[in-house]
């Protein structure tokens, strides 16, 4: 009885410790953003919003934030469509070597992103295309499509093909079957992948590093450049804004298109 209680206590303690370990950096960011002194100080000496003012008043940060949002939005759309299509092709297409194709599709997850960025940078130089916005989006897609492929393949793996046959039997054409049955049922996986894509793109540093054009940088790059010369609460404020924006997108997607699944995954 006693050992049971001790066991349960230990179990909870470990869980809380892991949670604290994960959340502590975020907490420190918040403290940093709200503390009046321009360096990390503990315990905090007061509360101020001046770093937020500075962040929002900076045209440099604002254009970076907008660019990041734009790139993340484009990336999310493109990666979701591409990744879900690829997963459907792999799972349903009856293509020879689908395991190899899956491995190739997922390989950017295993490659250091900085190599992906460098390789793409060299490709663009060879192609002599300069540093267009689409180039950046393509780079982000490379590292985000695997997430969508992964999560979509996971739902497709458990998909009961007889549901599609039932729809066909009831008179639905293959296209109609896809939109009436297949898509709604794989949606949770696709959306989950899309959320990953958004966050990975919005947060992206190594790939962007090579692909942004000077003077038109994404938020993580701008923050990094800022850090090289200044260290003050603006960094914290920018991070807090990033975190809240990402959370907002996740909650928004969940509320509108729904993450929860009807089928047990």
């Amino acid at each position, binding site marked *: 009885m006693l050992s049971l209680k001790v066991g349960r206590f230990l179990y909870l303690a470990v869980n809380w410790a892991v949670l604290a370990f994960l959340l502590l950096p975020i907490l420190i960011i918040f403290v940093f953003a709200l503390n009046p002194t321009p360096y990390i100080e503990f315990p905090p000496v007061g509360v101020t919003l001046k770093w937020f003012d500075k962040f929002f008043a900076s045209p440099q940060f604002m254009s970076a934030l907008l660019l990041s949002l734009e790139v993340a939005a484009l990336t999310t759309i493109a990666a979701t469509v591409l990744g879900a299509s690829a997963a459907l092709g792999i799972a349903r297409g009856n293509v020879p070597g689908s395991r190899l194709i899956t491995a190739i599709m997922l390989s950017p997850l295993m490659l250091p992103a900085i190599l992906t960025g460098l390789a793409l940078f060299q490709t663009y130089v060879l192609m002599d295309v300069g540093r267009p916005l689409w180039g950046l989006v393509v780079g982000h897609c490379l590292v985000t499509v695997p997430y969508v492929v992964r999560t979509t393949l996971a739902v497709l793996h458990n998909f*009961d093909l*007889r*549901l599609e*046959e*039932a*729809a*066909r*039997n*009831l*008179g*639905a*054409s*293959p296209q*109609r*079957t896809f939109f*009436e*049955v297949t898509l*709604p*049922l794989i949606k949770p996986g696709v959306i989950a992948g899309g959320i990953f894509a958004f966050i990975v793109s919005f947060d992206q540093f190594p790939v962007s590093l090579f692909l942004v054009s000077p003077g038109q940088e994404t938020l993580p790059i701008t923050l990094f450049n800022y850090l090289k010369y200044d260290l003050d609460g603006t960094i914290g404020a920018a991070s807090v804004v990033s975190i809240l924006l990402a959370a907002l997108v996740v909650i928004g997607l969940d509320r509108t298109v729904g993450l929860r699944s*009807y*089928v047990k995954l």
Partner: protein
Amino acid sequence: MSARIEIVGVSKSYDGAARAVDDIHMTIEPGEFFSLLGPSGCGKTTTLRMIAGFEMPSEGIIRVGGQDITRVPAHKRDMGMVFQNYALFPHRTVRENVAFGLRMRKMPRAAIAKKVDEALAMVALTGFEDRMPGQLSGGQQQRVALARAIVIEPRVLLCDEPLGALDKKLRQSMQFELKQLQKTLGVTLVFVTHDQEEALAMSDRIAVLSRGKVEQVGTPTEIYDRPATRFVADFIGETNLFRGELVGTDGAPALRVDGHLTLALPAADGLSGAISVGLRPEKVRLTPGGAGAQAQGTVESANFQGGHVLYRIALAGNRHVLAQSPNDGSGAPLAAGTPVSLGWTPADLVILKD
């Protein structure tokens, strides 16, 4: 509304493997309750899926209502289907599930609502319209699947072991209801089952399949009383199988099973060589003691089953025969070791093809 189905020389092999269905011929009449019966893996589902259009025959033609539909895609075949595990759309309510086929047929909303209500009433599920399939019991899901299939008023209704997942009690009442519904609608129904009792109880006609081939097509009584092959005799109910050499004359043929047992056969043409015959246990009359009759033996065991007793009788030459006697209320079954004589008439013996 209901249609004739003609299956002409249909074969199917998956990816060049052995034939799952092998040169099947059958004609299913309009409004008929037709069962495909056979052990697991004999090709029942494959046959049904070819009728539904989910598999393409490797050879042969399928006609429905006189029209060749072999290459018609599944969604243009106008058939209802009840899947083995129901295949209800988990993301749609009961109402939406049942309405699906009507929606695909571009029926006006008001008409759809009316038809859905009627179909749900027919399967006694009024009041469950807004439930999700996950909130229903197995039997209820089964009814939704049925309502979804019949609401489109299909020419043909296909059912793949629709009652297989239900418990025995529910299963029996659903058998009855399904049969009633089929008669009311007058729809041609192709029913797949591996359960011979179910097939015998429900069908107008049965096709018995084995290893992708049709062994016999007939009414339940034909299948039971006059099985065509050893396989059918063995698969449907209990049967005593004998194999031996033809002896005797044309007018009075007999089968020499072994040195101890020779059976008088019904007169028949074209018999020769090695022959198999079947004898149903309930055709064997037991008389305690005695000589005469067709054979003598001793009771080895008696299995009391309420309405009747199933005896295992040892014959000379290390051979056994099953005999079933009605329980006439005259007391305890014959004890083991009792000498008995066994009687039947030659007409009770059914000559079987291999």
